[in-house]
């Protein structure tokens, strides 16, 4: 279920399909409409967080990205995402391990930690944020959306904190825009997960990406492997294995090509080895191996 009702509370902030305000510290407030439902984002930016929390966090870096509207539920591409929310100050909010990048969906005073089954981690970060900020982070979201809904279920009930903060102005004074991009480089989030060897989460995130050419490559790479049998087989290589054991110390740092118990060639590089093999034209392909 999408986020609703924030437009009523925040008045003029939430109108139309896409607009933004920002305060002089770089906090950005935005709203946009997705299938008739207005999502209000922003309202309490990182700089405000710093002010509110009085926490010295030296390395906040913010980039605001706008996602296109699609789908009936709020999906990643429907959201405003602040990327690279660095939190490595001495009392900063520790970067959670296992999130989709350092990405935090920043939605109306509420940090939504996205997706891909990292609900527990996201909930923990949210608890930390909420505990450190005065006034507390405000939210009246009853239910999350998409896989992000897991976040709220982990919080044991709806997130309702400090109604007064809405009225008081967590509506911060607008100033400059940090950065606004028309396209979400969502693929970069996926790559980040891949680099951290969280492929399951990356695959989950991929399900949120549209069928566009820019995502085609990573979708192929993260596709489950497929298998089939070939109507052929190799031959027994017991003799080659024995040769490798018996002669390992003699060819350290070289590639060798062995057929049966016979060394066909040895070379410093695989390319050179295969050049020798092409010249020798063995009846069947030898086993090649790099000797430690």
């Amino acid at each position: 279920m999408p986020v609703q009702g924030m437009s009523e509370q925040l008045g003029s902030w939430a109108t139309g399909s896409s607009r933004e305000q920002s305060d002089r510290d770089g906090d950005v407030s935005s709203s946009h409409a997705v299938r008739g439902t207005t999502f209000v984002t922003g309202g309490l930016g990182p700089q405000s967080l710093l002010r509110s929390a009085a926490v010295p966090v030296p390395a906040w870096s913010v980039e605001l990205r706008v996602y296109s509207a699609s789908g009936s539920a709020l999906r990643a591409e429907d959201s405003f995402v602040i990327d690279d929310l660095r939190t490595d100050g001495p009392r900063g909010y520790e970067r959670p391990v296992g999130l989709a990048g350092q990405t935090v969906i920043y939605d109306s005073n509420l940090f939504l930690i996205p997706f891909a089954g990292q609900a527990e981690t996201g909930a923990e970060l949210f608890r930390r944020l909420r505990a450190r900020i005065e006034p507390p982070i405000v939210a009246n979201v009853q239910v999350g959306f998409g896989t992000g809904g897991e976040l709220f279920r982990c919080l044991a009930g709806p997130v309702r904190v400090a109604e007064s903060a809405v009225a008081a102005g967590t509506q911060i004074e607008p100033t400059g825009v940090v950065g606004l991009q028309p396209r979400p480089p969502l693929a970069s989030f996926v790559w980040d997960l891949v680099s951290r060897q969280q492929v399951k989460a990356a695959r989950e995130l991929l399900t949120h990406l549209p069928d566009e050419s820019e995502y085609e490559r990573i979708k192929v790479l993260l596709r489950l492997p497929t298998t089939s049998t070939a109507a052929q087989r190799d031959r027994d290589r017991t003799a080659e294995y024995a040769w490798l054991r018996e002669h390992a110390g003699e060819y350290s740092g070289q590639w060798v090509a062995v057929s049966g118990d016979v060394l066909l060639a040895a070379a410093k590089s695989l390319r050179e080895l295969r050049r020798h093999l092409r010249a020798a034209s063995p009846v069947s392909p030898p086993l090649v191996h790099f000797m430690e």
Partner: protein
Amino acid sequence: MSMLRLDDQNFSSGRAGFQDASSPYSGRSARVLVKVAVEGMDEPFLALLDTAAEYSVLDREIATEVGLASSEGDRITLSHRGGSTPGQLVRTTMRMLADEGEDLVVEATVFVPDHNWAPTGYRNFIGYIGFLERVKLGLDPQENHVYFGGY
């Protein structure tokens, strides 16, 4: 026999002998090295069967020989116990080679490091994601046989 059966269903389609130590001089404990091949290269080679490895790793020189090593494309830095290694993921066709039964063809995703890289002394790994996650495996350590099959 090449076919293992489980609940009257074929579990494996091929069997191969594996090498359980590449070097008696290295002082390392035995590992399971299986013979594989990659599309574009006739010669089989050995890869460490490592179910704990997140990705499969294809030796840089082999990848270069078959045209999989490129300076273009999205790069990742793979973090591991020994530090981090830059490279790229590629999709390719590999085969687990059988002595009996049939070779298993796997359309797999493998990591190609930017430079020659041999963690624990081995350059080729068969890891879980992108490869083994769709391969059924059985090991007979008494006979040094590995049984494999796909889904």
